[in-house]
C-alpha cells in the first residue's frame, strides 16, 4: 500500500446548492470541511435532512443539477474540476459507494455474479478473471458457497446477504475509499453485527478508507475512528469516537445521544427529546443553525454564528455554550 503524503480525501469549504425548476438555489450543504487519512474510518451522523447522505453523494458528484463551491481533493487533486469522463474513472473504481436500500439497488433480473463482475468487465477485464476475483471476494465476505450465490438472483438472498453483495460490488474494483450509506439499517441486530464485523475485517486487510453514514449511533460507536455530527447541512461537532460519545460538547450531539433508549437505561427516567423539527434549508436562521431546538440557547446564538472551538487534537465543535459534562 502506497503511503500518501497527507490525507487521501480533503474537503475544503464545500457548499452544495440545488436549484429547483422555479425558484432560488437552496443551499443543502453549507461550507463544510473534512479530511480523511488512508485506512481511517470516518462516520457521519445526524438526523434525516442533516446532509449526511448529500455529503457522500457530493463526493461522488451524483446529485442531479447541483452546483458545488469549494474543493474536494482526492489524492491531492480537486475532483470538482474533473470532466465527467475523468470522474467515471474515479467513481466505482477508486471511490465506491453502497446505497441504502439493497433490494431496490440490485437489479432484480440479473444474476448476482453478473452484477459484480460487470464492474470489471466494463473496463475490459476478461470474464474468467473477473469471475475468479468475484468468487474470492464473496468468500472473503463470508459466503459459504460463493459458486451458488454467483448464479442466484437478488430475491433468493436474505437482507444481510444482499447487503454483502452490495459491498462486493463496491469492493471488486479495489477502490481506495468505500462510502457505505446506512449499510445495516434494515437488518436485524445479529446480522447487523455480522455485516459490520465483515466491513471492519476487510477494511483492515485492504487498508481501505471507509466513510460510514448512519443514524445508528451504536453502530458508529463500534466502527468509527472519527465522527462528524451534522445538522442542517453543517458540521456542528467532530472528533475521535471517544470525544463524541464520551465528551460530547455540542448540545445537539448531547441531545442525540441522550434520546436513545439504550438497553441499560433506567426506564423510570423520562427520555429527553429534541423539540421542534429540523431546520428548513430554504429558511436558515441568522446565527447558530441549531438555535430553534437548542435547550441552552441564548440571545447571542441568534445573532452570531459560533466559530469552531478546538479541544485536543481532533475534537472541534461550534457552540458558544458547550456541554462540559463527560460520560464516565
Amino acid at each position, binding site marked *: 500500500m502506497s503511503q500518501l503524503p497527507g490525507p487521501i480525501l480533503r474537503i475544503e469549504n464545500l457548499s452544495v446548492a440545488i436549484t429547483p425548476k422555479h425558484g432560488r438555489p437552496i443551499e443543502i450543504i453549507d461550507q463544510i470541511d473534512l479530511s480523511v487519512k488512508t485506512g481511517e474510518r470516518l462516520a457521519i451522523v445526524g*438526523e*434525516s435532512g442533516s446532509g449526511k447522505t448529500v455529503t457522500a453523494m457530493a463526493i461522488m458528484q451524483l446529485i442531479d443539477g447541483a452546483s458545488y463551491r469549494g474543493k474536494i481533493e482526492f489524492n491531492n487533486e480537486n475532483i470538482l474540476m474533473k470532466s465527467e469522463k475523468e470522474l467515471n474513472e474515479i467513481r466505482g473504481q477508486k471511490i465506491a459507494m453502497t446505497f441504502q436500500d439493497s433490494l431496490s439497488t440490485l437489479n432484480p433480473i440479473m444474476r448476482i455474479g453478473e452484477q459484480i463482475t460487470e464492474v470489471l468487465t466494463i473496463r475490459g477485464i476478461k470474464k474468467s478473471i473477473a469471475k475468479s476475483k468475484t468468487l474470492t471476494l464473496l468468500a472473503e465476505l463470508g459466503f459459504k458457497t460463493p459458486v451458488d450465490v454467483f448464479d442466484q438472483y437478488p430475491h433468493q438472498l436474505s*437482507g444481510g446477504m444482499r447487503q454483502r453483495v452490495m459491498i462486493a460490488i463496491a469492493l471488486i474494483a479495489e477502490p481506495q475509499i468505500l462510502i457505505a450509506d446506512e449499510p445495516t439499517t434494515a437488518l*436485524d*441486530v*445479529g446480522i*447487523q*453485527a455480522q455485516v*459490520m*464485523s*465483515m466491513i*471492519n*475485517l476487510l477494511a483492515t486487510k485492504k487498508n481501505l478508507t471507509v466513510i460510514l453514514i448512519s*443514524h*445508528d*449511533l*451504536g*453502530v*458508529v*460507536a*463500534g*466502527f468509527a475512528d472519527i465522527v462528524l455530527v451534522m445538522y442542517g447541512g453543517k458540521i456542528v461537532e467532530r472528533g475521535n*469516537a*471517544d470525544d463524541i*460519545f*464520551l465528551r460530547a460538547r455540542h448540545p445537539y450531539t448531547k*441531545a*442525540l*445521544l441522550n*434520546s*436513545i*433508549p*439504550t*438497553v*441499560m*437505561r433506567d*426506564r423510570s427516567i*423520562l*427520555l*429527553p*427529546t*429534541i*423539540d421542534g*423539527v429540523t431546520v428548513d434549508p430554504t429558511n436558515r436562521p441568522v446565527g447558530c443553525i441549531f438555535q430553534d431546538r437548542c435547550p441552552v440557547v441564548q440571545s447571542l446564538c441568534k445573532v452570531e454564528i459560533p466559530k469552531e472551538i478546538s479541544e485536543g487534537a481532533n475534537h472541534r465543535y461550534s457552540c458558544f455554550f458547550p456541554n462540559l459534562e463527560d*460520560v464516565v
Partner: protein
Amino acid sequence: MTSLFKVKNLSKSYGNGVKRNFALKDISLDFPINVSVGIVGESGSGKSTLARCLIGLLKPDSGSIVYKGSDVSSFNASDYRKFRQDVQMVFQDPYTSLNPRMRIQEIVGEGVKVFDLAKNKDELFAKTASILNQVGISEEMFSRYPRQFSGGQRQRISIARALAVGPKVLICDEPVSSLDVSIQAQILNLLRGLTKNLSLSMIFISHDLGVIRYVSDFIVVMQNGIVVETGFPEQIFEDPQNKYTKSLLHAVPVPDPRIQRPRYLLK
C-alpha cells in the same frame, strides 16, 4: 382476574404444500389488563402476525383468542363491532397508513362517525380537536393533508386516529422504527403518557430492545414463531434465561465505543 387477551395454542401459516411456512407455532400467552406488553424479536419471528391475529386482521389456522373472557370466534356482529372499537392499531409506516386524500381531521373523525360517538358536527369537531391536541397537533393544522406532515407528526396523527374511538387496547406495530431517535423519543413519551392517563392496555411490537425496555411493563421474546421467554423487564434484561434472548441482548449496538468496538472484531 380476567386477562385482556388469552391466547391458546395459536398457529398461523402462510402458503401451502411444501412452501407452507408457520409464522406462529402453537403459541399460548396471557396479556394482563392495563399493562404495556412489549413483544420483541427479529424479522420472521411472528410478532406482527401475532398482533394481526389479535386484532382480527388475520384468521389463525387453529387455536383460540379470548378477549376479556369471551372467545373472539364466537362473536356476533354487534360483539365484533364493540371489539373493533375497543382494540385499535397504530401501524409501522406513517407514510402509507394514512389516506393521502383525506384531511387529517377527517382521518381522525372517521372512526368517531362510524361508531356514532358524536351527536352533531360541532361535537365531532370538538372530539377530533381534543384528541389531536392531546397528541400535540395544533388547530391550524387540522385541515391539512398527511403529505404536509413529517414522519413524527404523521405517527402522532395515527395515534390520534386510534384513540378517537375511545379504545381499551392499543396495538402498536413498530410505530417508531422509521423515525429519527429524537422524534422516536417524543413518540415513546407520548405513548407512555397516554397509556397511563387513559388507563389503556398496550401491546407494543418492536425489534429494538432498548425501545421495548422503555415502554414495557412485561416482555415477550419471540423467535421463529414461538415464544422463547417472557418476563418483567428486570428479568429479561438483567437475568435472561433463554439462549436466544441472551444473543439478542448481546447484539444490540451500544453507543459507547468502549463496549461496542470489541464486538465488531471478528475472530
